[in-house]
């Protein structure tokens, strides 16, 4: 009986994975006009292949059973984790096939040719869907338009979440709220989950359109504005311009900083602002207060670091890089590779913390950072407490019960430790690849950038990186996006099955 229940559960997982696989398929179909308008006929077959493959496999998995049994939480997490592995794999098809297309225009630069290597294409797709922004491309502006669009679209969809997209349109068999949680979200901004995800999408679309218009007004052309608007609000950071945002004027830089910061603010705060015109929602709770404090203090600190090192970096660029790291966006205006270890470490710390929970940003998240910070304060206060004196556990202006407070501290601390553990593992692997020209601080920076889904790079992300290094960064981006626990659960399943066989 146990076995039949197990196989039933696995069928439900596969059925929902089938639903998720429709996402890259539909994305490819939506991208066909770009291919046609830009006259890049060589990208047509790759997009169609991606669409047919994803939709066919998706339908096959979806229709293999009419199972209506809802699954328990571990299976929801496995579904999310496996879905997030398979969706980018299917989405790498257009990159790989376009680079290998026989009728590829001969005047294209070598940038696209790097995607002939499947590792690079898969890396790019994972970087896209996890809205990281680390890229295997040398020069973004020389990529075909279809590929530029495809990269931006992956980040845009991935930023808000494949599962959020699916449960706002379709009905998975697994309890949707569990899937929603497994994708690293927990906030509700509506009575029901379907209302919540629909609101998230509305907010997302409104901000995306706003960002595109803003970028157009401050001086980008329509194509650049479209792509940067999509990847900016997704806190992704793929660019279509040579060397990211570096060659734009100050107005564009300020506009991008604004969009990156908006991307780091939670959807529930955006909802309050849009629906009730309560601008104070942007600093009403502790995590958004932390956002503004870290943003301003960190910029000054980083600027001071550069002064101390006698490095001439303009203040606007310091502010830009700092908000890019804090919002886990990954646009850049200057290269961080020649910064000193101290400045890189400071950037690493803020990348690890990341943006607000319930936003498109990655990292440990500000809400957890706040809880851990409070836990330290509480710990000290408890030492001085008299035997019967009541402890004041205050969070977001509310008094928590002791059990609730310690539950939150536990959850945040466990996640922070997990984040550190997988990052340290990643650092060891990359360090022992013995990369020339890169020291330990570069490796730590790159690993934090991947795990938090930032996309700033010291240059380690490069087509010449050995496959093991690429795989390591891919896994870090994947685990980081799912907030680790779902991913670890999926990885532990084979072990569990083996153990049960005895």
């Amino acid at each position: 009986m146990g076995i039949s229940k197990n196989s039933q559960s696995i069928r439900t997982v596969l059925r929902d994975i089938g639903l998720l696989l429709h996402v890259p398929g539909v994305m490819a179909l939506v991208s066909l006009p770009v291919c046609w308008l830009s006259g890049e006929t060589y990208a047509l077959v790759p997009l169609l292949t991606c669409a047919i493959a994803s939709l066919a496999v998706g339908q096959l998995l979806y229709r293999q059973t009419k199972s209506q049994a809802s699954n328990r939480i571990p299976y929801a997490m496995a579904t999310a984790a496996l879905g997030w592995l398979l969706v980018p794999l299917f989405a790498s098809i257009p990159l790989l096939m376009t680079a290998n297309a026989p009728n590829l225009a001969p005047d294209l630069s070598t940038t696209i040719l790097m995607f002939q290597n499947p590792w690079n294409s898969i890396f790019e797709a994972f970087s896209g869907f996890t809205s990281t922004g680390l890229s295997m491309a040398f020069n973004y502006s020389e990529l075909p338009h279809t590929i530029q669009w495809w990269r931006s679209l992956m980040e845009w969809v991935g930023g808000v979440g494949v599962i959020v997209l699916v449960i706002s349109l379709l009905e998975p068999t697994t309890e949707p709220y569990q899937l929603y949680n497994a994708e690293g979200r927990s906030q509700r901004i509506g009575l029901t989950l379907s209302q919540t995800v629909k609101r998230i999408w509305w907010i997302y679309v409104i901000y995306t359109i706003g960002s595109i218009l803003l970028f157009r007004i401050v001086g980008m052309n329509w194509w650049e504005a479209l792509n940067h608007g999509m990847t900016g609000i997704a806190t992704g950071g793929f660019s279509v311009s040579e060397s990211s945002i570096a060659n734009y004027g100050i107005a564009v830089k300020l506009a991008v900083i604004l969009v990156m910061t908006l991307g780091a603010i939670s959807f529930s705060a955006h909802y309050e602002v849009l629906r009730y015109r309560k601008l104070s929602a942007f600093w009403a709770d502790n995590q958004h207060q932390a956002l503004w404090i870290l943003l301003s203090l960190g910029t000054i600190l980083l600027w001071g670091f550069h002064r101390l090192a006698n490095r001439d970096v303009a203040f606007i660029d310091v502010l830009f890089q700092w908000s890019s790291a804090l919002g886990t966006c990954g646009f850049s205006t200057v290269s961080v590779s020649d910064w000193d270890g101290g400045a890189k470490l400071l950037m690493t710390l803020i990348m690890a913390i990341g943006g607000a929970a319930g936003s498109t940003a990655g990292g440990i998240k500000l809400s957890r950072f706040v809880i851990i910070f409070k836990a330290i304060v509480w710990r000290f206060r408890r030492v001085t407490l008299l035997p019967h004196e009541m402890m004041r556990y205050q969070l977001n202006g509310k008094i928590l019960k002791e059990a609730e407070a310690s539950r939150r501290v536990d959850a945040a601390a466990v996640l922070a430790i997990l984040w550190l553990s997988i990052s340290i593992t990643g650092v060891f692997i990359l360090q022992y690849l013995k990369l020339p020209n890169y020291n330990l601080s570069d490796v730590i920076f790159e690993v934090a950038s991947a795990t938090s889904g930032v996309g700033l790079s010291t240059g380690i992300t490069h087509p010449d990186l050995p496959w093991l290094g690429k795989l390591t960064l891919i896994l870090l981006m994947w685990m980081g996006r799912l907030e680790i626990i779902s991913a670890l659960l999926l990885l532990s399943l084979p072990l569990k099955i083996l153990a049960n066989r005895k």
Partner: protein
Amino acid sequence: MYLIIVGAGAVTKQLISTAKEQGHKVAVIEKNPQRARDIMQEFDVNIFHADIAEGKILEEAGVTHADAIIATTNDDSVNLMAMVLGKQYGVKSLITLLQEREQQAMFEKLGIRVLSDPEKLIAQKLYSLIDLEK
């Protein structure tokens, strides 16, 4: 001044906010955790989660440098206990609410200021507001 309030009822909140406005320091002793948290939610005061009958709770709350103890519970015996203990520690002002008027004389004999029957006070005040001339 330093005031210790025993019991966290509706009166206590008014009392705390008045005392805080005057710039006094306040501590509250309450045995019900939910009521204690209610006070904590609104005011930045020290709160002790304990029963007044638990031996050294007043000492823990710093009774030796307290200027007044105010008992506000609905239970006269608890109020009495707070007052007797306060007297032992030599607190200058001892004030209590009282439900049963018959006990008033006994409390006053101990040098405690008593507000008995608060409902009656309210009723009298309400009555005094009526314009009887018309």
